């Protein structure tokens, strides 16, 4: 099963294409990293995949052919948006309540145990938590929905190194424990080195490269994901190179 399938996918805001002619298949069971400079179209691609945005061209399906944004798609995907938006005036317990009631599944014992481990008090207002705690809360809420696909938009951009490490540890633990597929975007390449098994390189609204990290490194003769990405992003070929 492919967790995301796009064909000829494009999104135009006004006269400019934020993303165009995007065709890709992200297989299940991977941690897929969406890499590219700021403004490359990463958020646009993720918003299309989770159904927040409707495509201007082409189409995108998720979780084996479900229309992005459909009830079946929303049920299986958990999304943590950039800057991890939470209702700042609600307590942590209220955020659990709201998320539980907005979804068919919610693993309350898991969420409570996770928050206890993280030392996040249930009675504190979400807005009073530190940046790292807010990110962990948003991630915990997402994982407690028991998604098949977890989508993270620049999850660690605002976090300090320790919070970054803890956040990614939580993601990886969820991957190894119940095989959730992950699609995350980042412009912090060093964080991805450890976690990513699938890479999608995006720049200037086009997909430049997509594939298994191991295959890509072998094919392109690069020692690390970072070098591979840098090499590609420096070149920024004018014609789209996929796969």
């Amino acid at each position, binding site marked *: 099963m492919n967790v995301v399938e796009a064909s000829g996918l494009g999104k135009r805001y006004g006269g400019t294409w934020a993303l165009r002619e995007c065709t890709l298949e992200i297989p299940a069971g991977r941690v897929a990293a969406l890499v590219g400079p700021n403004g490359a179209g990463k958020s646009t691609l993720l918003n299309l995949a989770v159904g*927040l945005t409707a495509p201007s061209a082409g189409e995108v399906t998720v979780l084996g052919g479900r229309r992005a944004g459909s009830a079946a798609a929303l049920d299986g995907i*958990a999304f943590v948006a*950039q800057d991890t*938006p939470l209702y700042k005036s609600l307590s942590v317990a209220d955020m659990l309540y709201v998320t539980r*009631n*907005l979804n068919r599944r919610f693993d309350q014992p898991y969420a409570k145990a996770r928050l206890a481990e993280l030392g996040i008090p249930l009675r504190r207002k979400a807005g009073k938590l530190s940046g790292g705690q807010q990110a962990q809360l948003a991630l915990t809420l997402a994982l407690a929905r028991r*998604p098949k696909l977890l989508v993270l938009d620049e999850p660690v951009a605002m976090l300090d190194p320790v919070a970054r490490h803890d956040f990614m540890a939580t993601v990886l633990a969820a991957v190894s424990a119940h095989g959730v597929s992950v699609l995350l975007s980042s412009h912090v390449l060093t964080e991805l080195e450890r976690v990513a098994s699938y890479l999608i390189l995006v720049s200037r609204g086009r997909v430049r490269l997509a594939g298994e990290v191991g295959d890509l490194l072998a094919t392109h003769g690069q020692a690390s994901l970072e070098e591979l990405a840098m090499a590609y992003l420096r070149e920024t070929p004018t014609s789209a190179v996929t796969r």
Partner: protein
Amino acid sequence: MTALTMPARPDEDGARLQPVPWRRMAGVTWRQHRYALAGVAVLLGALAVWLWIIGTPLHHAYAAAIACHPASSPACVGLDGTFQGMDNLLTGPTTPGGVFLQVVPVLIGAFAGAPVLAREMETGTFRYAWTQGFGRWRWALAKLVLLAVVLAAAGVAFSVLLSWFNQPYFAPANQALGPYANSPFAWFNLREVAFPAWILVAFAIGALAGMLIRRVVPAIVATLAAYAGLLLATGGLLRAHYLTPLVTTNNFNLPSTAWIISQWTAKDGRFAFTGLPPISLVNKFCSSVPAGPGKEGVSLEAVAQCLARHGYTQWTIYQPASRFWPFQWIQGGWQLALSALLIAATIWLVRRRAA
């Protein structure tokens, strides 16, 4: 970091989904909007206490004045004077209290309605809300309808209390008691159907403005402006035409409770004057009209009869008080329809809005 707790393996297939039940939105809506709802409760509650405090002595004074016989006795005149003298901020719709009450629906609508979507857009939390399993248009529909119903119900309860307060001023027996006998139309916007309907309209305008403007404060300002325009247009242009007005030339049979829309005098089918007849006209035709009984100067009725003999007819276009409730329902009806339309437009925007 200690060992991580893991979620259990997901076991459900997403092929055939039961949607998340609607009723779950009740608790969600309450948690998110309890401060706004508490604010409405405090505002209406404080006004209710105030109405009760000033209304209780008013009702006692009225009951005493009505029960007194014979009405012309000095004691009764005194009681009547006590009732008439019970001046307060709410003696009429144009007193400060009356004016403030007319603003209450838009305060409720703008401050409870505009932030519902504008705050989600402003803080980015719509990215959270619209990607939950409930589904975004169902989320918007449930939330808006729930809040609208609760606010309208609060409006009904409050307007019932306000009508209790006003009852001495409207009671048929009061027609004889003095200057406050007024048309029920004067309080039209604050009555049991119109008041909650205005709250609904203001709420729906606020919700749509919030979705269009995506910022809380500008959305509130826009709501206030749009509401003011609609209020003026309704009172000044629409309401008089809910039913075809009646026309009479027999003004002294016109009940004091009628809503007079316009009044003028004509001769030979041509407009002559509005309001009181010009002095020159009275001197020309009616200088010999005797003074009215017990009054100084000339009786208006006698002058009118005199002018009528000379071919002057006073025309009055009015709505009788018996049309008060039909008018309430007509206005309530179109405002309910307008609110539903605005909320539907808001949900349509939620459905198609790009992130």
